[in-house]
């Protein structure tokens, strides 16, 4: 990773530590982690429950802050930004795919996908075009007017992916995107993510504890007790 990172890093973490206070005791979730992710990478971060992989993803997304260290993503240093500034930055640079899909149940598939575009200056027609394109990419052009309750789990997650890519973000972060899916649906989602990386050049960081899911990524790194296992 190091050669490519020198050329074009999208994510650059330096001595990042994250500790939580639990019952008066400081617990380190991430310990002095330093690494870079080059643009266009499909990286899978693996690790057992509690290893800190979701925390790491949240730090990269600007959802959580490191206790110490610096986090630079898409050319912006995040660790000193305010919550509001981070939200604005996220809207431009991050597409987030959740394990539990997290669609808004009262909005249709198209409206859910359109949601991030409410923060842009696009016209109504442009927004509609973006939504159609995103849903077509995930193979759900014929389910635009369906509500989440009318979709299968796999379809819901595909809507979640469409929502993540509709604003053309710099990077897609996926937190256990196949964790709630059956094998077939999981394969569909992984194929979709791989396609987005391959055909659109999207940088994707996926957290998973499933080795079969991780195999679909270009690179796999293991996080164990807050330390990232680096390649030999």
């Amino acid at each position, binding site marked *: 990773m190091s050669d490519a990172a020198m050329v074009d890093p999208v994510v650059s973490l330096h001595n990042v530590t994250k500790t939580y206070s639990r019952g008066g005791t400081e617990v380190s979730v991430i310990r002095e982690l330093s690494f870079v992710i080059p643009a266009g990478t499909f990286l899978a971060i693996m690790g057992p429950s509690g290893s800190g992989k979701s925390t790491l993803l949240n730090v990269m997304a600007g959802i959580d802050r490191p206790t110490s260290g610096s986090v630079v993503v898409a050319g912006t240093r995040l660790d000193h930004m305010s919550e*509001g500034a981070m*939200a604005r930055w*996220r809207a431009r640079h991050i597409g*987030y795919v959740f394990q539990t899909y*997290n669609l*808004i149940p*009262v909005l249709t598939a198209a409206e859910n996908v*359109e*949601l991030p*575009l409410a923060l842009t200056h696009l016209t109504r027609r442009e927004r509609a075009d973006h939504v159609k394109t995103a849903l077509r990419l995930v193979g759900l052009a014929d389910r635009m007017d369906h509500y989440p309750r009318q979709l299968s789990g796999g379809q819901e997650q595909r809507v979640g992916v469409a929502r993540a890519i509709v604003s053309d973000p710099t990077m897609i972060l996926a937190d256990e995107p196949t964790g709630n899916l059956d094998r077939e649906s999981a394969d569909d989602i992984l194929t979709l993510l791989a396609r987005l990386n391959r055909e659109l050049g999207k940088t994707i960081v996926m957290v998973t504890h499933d080795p079969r899911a991780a195999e679909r990524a270009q690179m796999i790194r293991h996080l164990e007790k807050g330390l990232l296992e680096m390649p030999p």
Partner: protein
Amino acid sequence: MTLLRLMLRNTVRRPVRLALTIGGLAMVVLAFGLLRLTLDEWHSGVKAAANNRLITVHAMSDSLQLPLAYKERMAVIPGVQLVHYGNVFGVEYRDAKESFGAFAEHMGTFFETYPEILLNESDRLAFLKDRGGCLIGWKLAARFGWKVGDVIPLKGTTHAGNWELVVRGIFHSSNPAIMGEGELYVHWQFANERLKTTAPDRIDQVGWYVATTAPGVNTRTVVAAIDATFANSFAETRTEREQAYIAGWVARAGALLEALDWLSGVMNGIAALVLVNALAMAVRERTREYGVMKTLGFQPRHLVTLVLGESLLVALGGALVGLGLLYPAARLYAVMVAGGKTVGAYEITAETIWLCLGAMVLVGLLAALWPAVRLSRMTTLEGLRHRG
């Protein structure tokens, strides 16, 4: 547009809860509106009073009587154009619940003193000719189904005995706040004659005088002159312009009015609590969704707008349903509660409507305050980790 759609869909997301909340708010608006109607009625007389009518009553108490002989002495006071007088004529129809405002008035000056009375000429003449006849407001006629020519059997309270009065006319009023349309009028002379046999010590007494002043006359001077005329007599007078007299009457009921005002405030507080509860539940249930929205880049102000909008929509929904119910309720209220006893018309004014809407907007804003503060302070991570 998406946010507006989301706001609308969130509002109707739990139909049963929404219906109950709107129902609760509507009941509060209804009660608030009826209270305002009552307060408005108390105050409307003050606004509607005539400038050229002076009311003279006993200086010690409105309930004490003045001698009829004062009429001639008042009539010669400079500035006084006409002197009218009357008494309360307390009666009930079939039982005490069916009582209403009734007055014995000197009919020689009644119509001139109160041009507010709208009555066709033939009925007016028929009434003036028949000393045992009565005049009733159209609301009273509608309440009991009385019509011209009917004989009404009444039981006297202030004027003992049974009375059988013939309805000679049904009037409307150009100013119901002063001249109520739910009242009954008889000839003062007729009531006075009956007193000769039932209560001889009360004959030739008057509850109030109404002196009409000539245009351009300084009423303050006339007021002072009337009271000066009867100073140091056994029945001193207190004279006020009609407006001041009614205002004083309203002021004497000040504690009650103040209590009603406070009650209005308490009702709005209840409405706010109803809405706060519903809104807090909704926001708590959707905390994770708000966390997701923040992950997508939405700012606290967007989420606050969603909650505030929803709160205002529900509050206005409650206001509209409540106002819709207020119209039939006000009619029912006028008949059942007021029963024509007062001069009030119990009509819903634009002010009452705006007051109800304004109160509900305020309730909507207040109810959204706490959930909005909570959402503003919530970090994205707290939202995402929320388990509803």
